[in-house]
């Protein structure tokens, strides 16, 4: 097993853990955290491919990760403030309670 596939497997595992969390938990904050985890798994992929890729001098993977981290930070900020707004509205952040858009 090459080192790259080890990192890829780890990243796939992290992704699945994040996905499992996002699918099974009812608390909106935890779902958001699960999504963050999936994003981070993707970051690990970028870095691993940059490290073992054919042209590490191009820095593309590193750049992608830096931008992805900033986007994730923005996402976390906006997501958590949406959760706060929802909580103020319905006094709960249980995802089951957020079904007023249900058809």
């Amino acid at each position, binding site marked *: 097993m090459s080192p790259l596939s080890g990192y890829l497997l780890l990243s796939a595992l*992290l992704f699945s853990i*994040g996905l499992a969390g996002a*699918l099974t938990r009812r608390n909106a904050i935890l779902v958001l*955290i699960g999504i963050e985890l999936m994003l981070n798994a993707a970051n*690990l992929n970028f*870095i691993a491919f940059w490290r073992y890729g054919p042209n590490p001098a191009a820095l593309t993977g*590193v750049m992608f990760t830096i931008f992805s*981290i900033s986007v994730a930070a923005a996402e976390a900020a906006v997501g958590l403030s949406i959760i706060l707004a929802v909580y103020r509205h319905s006094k709960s952040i249980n995802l089951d309670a957020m079904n007023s858009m249900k058809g």
Partner: protein
Amino acid sequence: MTISFFIIAAITIVGTAAAMSLKNLVHCVLSLTLGLVGLALLFLLLGAQFVGFTQILVYVGAVAILAVFAIMMTRSAEPMTNLPPASFRLSGVLIAATVFAVLAWAISSATRSLPSQSSQPEVSVNQIGVALMHQFVLPLEVIGVLLTAALVGAAILAMDETGASR
């Protein structure tokens, strides 16, 4: 495939798995922090020093604190009593497991075509800065705009409505 990789990977997996499965939300966030620190260590191991430290700074210093604040403000620090039904949880775990299985299959079947081990690339912060300011300056600006918009948007969203109308 060094011993340090396995240790750090174990830390990461334990941290993230705990973050997704513990009952108490604060514990979840704390173990998430552990997992993300492990991820940052993996970045260091891969030679991406700048990204690793940025990861710690952003996730431990900002996102985790933000999540903790959100937990405190939504009063969800106490363990939840009304857990979703077991079938719901089981289906989610099953789907996640399937995803992992498929991805692992994909990775293992692609192992032959993956590039073999190369030497550790030397990347200094200076190079990253130069690349950010020249080659990637447009994405940088866009990220700046995005962060500003997110900042303003988050502030407006989180603003108390009664306070805002003052």
